């Protein structure tokens, strides 16, 4: 329990330090957050002054920082300059589909990816291992936007099997739940496959290496010698001991899936947090950028915390020091 409390406190401190750094880094970016508003119609100087006051951009940086932190503690990240709407509303609007896409990809990586990694280790050096290595590395080396576009060209444009973009078809009002679920799944398929294809290699490679290490351990040989079934030896002994090092990947993956799917989101018009953050960064929309930063920081800290906890659960030496 002490270990857990210490680890939780460490996570909170890390988050505070990260947010402080992010706040000042964002403010040091070149550009003016109000400039984007004058893209279509120029603003008068009076309007610019008024907006500066409204968004507290005329205040000293320290005052702005205190306002941001106190607001963030209340869950209020201010109003987006670009959209003129509360940041929290914008983030919450996009979060569900980011979580949906991220969760599916995470599920694929940590089920299929790990299983394939184990198969590679068991067939080390044989054709299956070589084939899977080639395929996974090809996926890893492929730019996600290119793969996405190719899939759109094949599955949407040429064969009309799946939708090219978006998260839902318009015009389904009043449709049954089954139609709506099917529609969402059809829209999810290509972006999830694209993201999984370019990311599954790392979980496979990690799992393969950890599993090969585990298979070399004396206790695995001892388990085999005791006459346990191969399945029991592989999954009950070797895989369990290989798992903790792979779980650290989970901590790394969580933030990437929250804000890192920018290209895939753009190609498939999957309007999630990634594209929102990229747009906010380009427009220097400080409140929105910081709102996304809070989310990303929370994802990093939570991911790392969760992987430590899982690690500790699987390996008691971690929590006993």
């Amino acid at each position, binding site marked *: 329990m002490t270990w857990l409390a210490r680890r939780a406190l460490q996570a909170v401190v890390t988050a505070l330090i990260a947010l402080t750094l992010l706040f000042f880094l964002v403010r040091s970016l*070149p*550009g*003016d*957050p109000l*400039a*984007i*508003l*004058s*893209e*279509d*119609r*120029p*603003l*008068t*100087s*009076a*309007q610019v002054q*008024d907006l500066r006051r409204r968004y507290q951009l005329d205040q000293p940086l320290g005052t702005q920082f205190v306002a941001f932190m106190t607001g963030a503690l209340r869950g209020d990240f201010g109003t987006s300059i670009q*959209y*003129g*709407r509360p940041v929290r509303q914008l983030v919450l*609007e*996009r979060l569900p*589909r980011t979580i949906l896409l991220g969760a599916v990809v995470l599920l694929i990586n940590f089920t299929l990816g790990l299983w394939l990694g184990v*198969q590679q280790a068991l067939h080390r050096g044989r054709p299956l291992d070589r084939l899977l290595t080639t395929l996974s590395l090809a996926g890893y080396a492929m730019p996600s936007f290119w793969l996405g*576009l190719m899939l*759109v060209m094949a599955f*949407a*444009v040429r*064969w*009309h*099997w*799946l*939708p*090219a*973009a*978006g*998260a*839902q*078809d*318009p*015009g*389904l009002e009043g449709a049954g739940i089954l*139609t709506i679920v*099917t*529609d969402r799944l*059809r829209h999810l*398929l290509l972006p999830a496959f694209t993201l999984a294809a370019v990311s599954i290699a790392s979980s496979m490679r990690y799992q393969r290496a950890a599993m090969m290490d585990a298979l070399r351990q004396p206790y695995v040989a001892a388990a085999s010698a005791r006459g346990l079934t191969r399945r029991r030896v592989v999954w009950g002994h070797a895989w369990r001991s290989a798992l903790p090092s792979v779980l650290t990947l989970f901590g790394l993956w969580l933030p990437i899936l929250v804000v890192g799917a920018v290209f895939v989101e*753009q*190609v*498939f*018009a999957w*309007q999630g947090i990634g*594209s929102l953050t990229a*747009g906010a*960064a*380009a*427009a*220097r*929309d400080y409140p929105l950028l910081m709102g996304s930063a809070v989310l990303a920081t929370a994802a990093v800290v939570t991911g790392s915390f969760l992987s430590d906890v899982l690690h500790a659960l699987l390996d008691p030496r971690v929590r006993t020091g």
Partner: protein
Amino acid sequence: MLRRCGRLLLLMMAGLSATGAAQSTPASPRRLVIAIGQSITNIVPTLNRSAAAMQISDLVFLRLGRYGGTSFGDHAAVPELAKGWTRRDSLTIAFDLDPRARWHDGTAVTARDVVYSFGRARDPKQSASTAMLLVDVAGVQAEGNNRVVIRFSRAYGEQLYDATYHVQILPAHLVAGIPADSLATSAFAQNPVGNGPYRWDRLEPTDYLQLRSVPDFFLGKPGIEQLVWRFTSSQETRLGMLLSGEADVQEDLIPPLSNLGRLAERPSLRAVNFPSMSVNYLLFNERTPGDTGRPHPIFADREVRRALTMGLDRATLSQALFVKYATPASSPAPRAAWFGALAPSPLEFNAREAIRILAARGWKDSDGDGVLDRNGAPFAFNLMVPTSSAARMQLALIVQEQWRRLGLKVELVPLELGDYLARRRPGNFDVATESFSSDPSPWSLIDRWGCSGEANYGRYCNRTADSLLRAAHLAQRDPAPAIRGWLRTVALDFPAVFLFAPDKVYAMPKAYGNVTFQVESPWQRVWTWTLPSAGR
């Protein structure tokens, strides 16, 4: 095991594809799906700022009259909410509302709505940009339920245009009770009630906006039942949606030109073009970047600007980017504007003459390094370009190469849009790749090219030009001579290299009839389109 999983995955995909194959094609030919690059969150007049939102807003909220093809005189508008108007004297116009006009909740449109809407539009706290445009409106009064009288503080030729073009009418019975600063977050903004041919239906803020036709619209029944705008920032994806049948119309099809060829993949589509209100130009900064008090060391010289204009082969440039869908420009006047025809002819490309002019101004390659120099300083400058526009990036590369042949050292400075705009406002650039869409009134250009214009980022100033434009604005008879004089003066000052006026090129189904696009607001007349005789 591996084979089992693979089979299961294929089976799932096949199942999902089969169940949804019919859905990926719009279900009804009575629905037009338009793929656009921006997200729309609000279409309420005075609250929205994006061009796309304003264009959609035109289908829901009407004006007293729509733009009539000129901004001058008493034919500057065509009746819309007002069935007609009478000029009482040089300062007063009375508008008679069409008694058939109704809000989408069934309430009649009244003079009170018009008075309220003008009040809101003229209040700088609620709508600063429109308030500036309506500075000559002295008062708006209701005379009974169906007549509104607008008084102007002075006599000028664009009174009718000002009274009709800038103000969309809002329902006073729904909006007047909402505090001005809460309108953006009000229930009305989430579910606006208008008076146009289409009513607000549904907004999925990240995906699409849907409007539904108003069958008993007082000017006629719209031909298309549903209009859907799908938001997709990637142009490649928009094209994918078009070719897969998920969208019917794609705005801004070119550049890249390759998109024209790819339209052939869906034979039911065609490319439609119409002149736009845009002009693309390379803006010279006439002041030193970072010190607007001092003239620019290179571009303060009009002759140098002239040489750089002559040294660009604009015909080749526009051909490379737009093939036949652009016209070389000589001034800020857009081709689609009524005053576009008054612009002088563009300067001919003549690289030899450009080099001669530069040499006469002291710019020669004295050290043989291929770059002109004067007093030891090379002819080097930066060309700022926003990375958000692939067309402008491509344009900048061609310009860089063409100017290199003159002996100029051009450094491209690609910037994210926010950074680009932030550097443009205080004048932290040498040359900027600009594109500007103006209103149909020449007076709207004073902001960009007038000495005290808020958007005059290049700090160009010619008092004579300003006087000519002001004279045109105030003209009560024929403004053409003053406008012609203004355009000629600006063209000869070379505050920018006016490159070309591009057309709007849309991809859309061949089957639709009576297709017309309004140059100032393309979707305004979509309700008059006729349905295809067969499905898609």
